[in-house]
């Protein structure tokens, strides 16, 4: 049995079907990304899998047990940082550490929080309030907060979506480094609208089709050695194949809606070899 299993998941808000017939599995130690256009139901999917929002139909299990609430073994990084503005960077991280490690002494909790803030390069800014930090630095605090509880699984909801391209690239490398430095292999499920970001970080990528009633594409494995360099991926053959294949999944729904002929779509796919 896989570590994380999603079976025949569906979610509707009233009469609107957001997700339908979603099946998904993930092993421990895997980094999996789900790419999809905005408003395709990606975030809804992640919220259901992590236990923040209940599904309308279907089941999610983690480690064999049904997911009904946000798991104590999980951590999540939100797109909009979600730091508490009245707490300093250290206090924000420590709030998570305190809840995750109640058995630690106050000193140990402080050390644990500082260790992870240093790891994301914020050793000198631990007493700053979020309003005194840039967007990139805020997201670093959020990443430190997620790693500091030493989660068994990490959920990333468009973690870099609100950042400028340059900061985004730096933080992607930072996240890759954090994952490789962690005490045990990090199991991570990332939601993103950026295919390159997914290729850079993931072992496997799935595309979420266009809504309404979106479902997942077959998985595309990424067998590139880590660490990966973003600039090399631009020209790597395998990366290009993966990118094309995902682009095809992502645009398939849109094209059929525009009632373009299927022939045109398949002609497009013949120009690029499909086997990743």
């Amino acid at each position, binding site marked *: 049995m896989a570590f994380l299993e999603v079976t025949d998941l569906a979610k509707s808000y009233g009469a609107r079907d957001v997700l339908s017939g979603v099946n998904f599995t993930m092993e421990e130690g895997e980094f999996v990304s789900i790419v999809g256009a905005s408003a395709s139901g990606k975030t809804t999917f992640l919220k259901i899998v992590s236990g923040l929002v209940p599904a309308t139909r279907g089941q999610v299990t983690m480690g064999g047990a049904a997911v009904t609430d946000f798991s104590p073994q999980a951590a999540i990084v*939100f797109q909009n940082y979600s730091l508490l503005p009245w707490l300093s960077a250290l206090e924000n991280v420590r709030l998570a550490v305190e809840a995750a490690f109640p058995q630690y002494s106050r000193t140990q909790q402080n050390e644990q929080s500082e260790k992870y803030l240093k790891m994301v390069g914020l050793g000198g800014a631990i007493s700053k309030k979020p309003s005194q930090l840039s967007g990139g630095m805020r997201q670093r605090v959020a990443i430190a907060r997620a790693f500091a509880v030493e989660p068994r699984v990490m959920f990333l909801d468009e973690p870099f979506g609100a950042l400028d391209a340059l900061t985004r690239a730096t933080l992607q490398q930072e996240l890759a480094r954090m994952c490789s430095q962690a005490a045990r292999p990090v199991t991570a499920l990332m939601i993103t609208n950026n295919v390159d970001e997914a290729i850079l970080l993931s072992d496997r990528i799935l595309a979420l089709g266009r809504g309404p009633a979106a479902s997942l594409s077959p998985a595309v494995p990424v067998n590139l050695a880590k660490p990966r360099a973003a600039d090399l991926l631009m020209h790597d053959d395998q990366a290009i194949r993966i990118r094309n294949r995902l682009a095809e999944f992502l645009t398939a729904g849109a094209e059929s809606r525009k009632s373009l002929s299927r022939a045109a779509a398949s002609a497009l796919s013949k120009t690029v070899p499909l086997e990743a």
Partner: protein
Amino acid sequence: MKKRLGNFALALVGVALVGALWAITSATIAPDLPSPLKTWEESKIYVMQPWEKRGEMDQGILRMASYSLWRVAKGFLLAILIGTPLGFILGASNLFYKMFDPTIQVLRPISPLAWLPLGLILFRQSEPAALFTIALCSMWPTVINTMQGVRAIPQDYHNVAKVLRLSPWRRLTKIWIPATLPFMFSGYRLSLGLAWLVIVAAEMLTGTPGVGGFLWQEYNSLIYSHILLCILTIGIVGFALDRLMGVAEARLRAA
């Protein structure tokens, strides 16, 4: 600095104009209204010896004001001690909100003059009746603002609480209270203003020493200039209280 000085000068001009209007009115159409000069002549002793106590109802104006302030402080404290938790409960629970909001909307516009006799019946003494009235009348802005503050907590913060699995106590102290604090303080400021409005009515009806009690007594003794003295004192103290709360509120927002 120069701009502030200019604003201050303009405010003084405004005061002078209203004073002139007062003087003209008392000299022409309202002979019963003491002129500013007469008011000052007859009130001088109360202002120049502000802490003097010559008798139960014959005391310096600051001494009188301090009795009123002390009474307001107690009533206001009672109001926020009851109003804040009540606001939290109403903001957090839709059930409670639906259950009690209509009742609150009915109770809110009731005048202190209507509550006071009930307080006198219930407590049989003027002091607790006054506190009861002040608390009951000034509580509502605190309740309503706190409630709206709780309802306005962004979903993000609720998600953080859920994801970090904070205990109910930590949820309250680390998220709910800090997120609601600015709203709570706006409520406190309005409540304090109301409490000061109510004090005059409460003292007039119960005849207790204080600015309001003094005002009523001097009306009955036909010393009209002292009524004006009391009115001015009430206004100035109320203005000072509001400014103080404003400063506290600004500090809080800056923090």
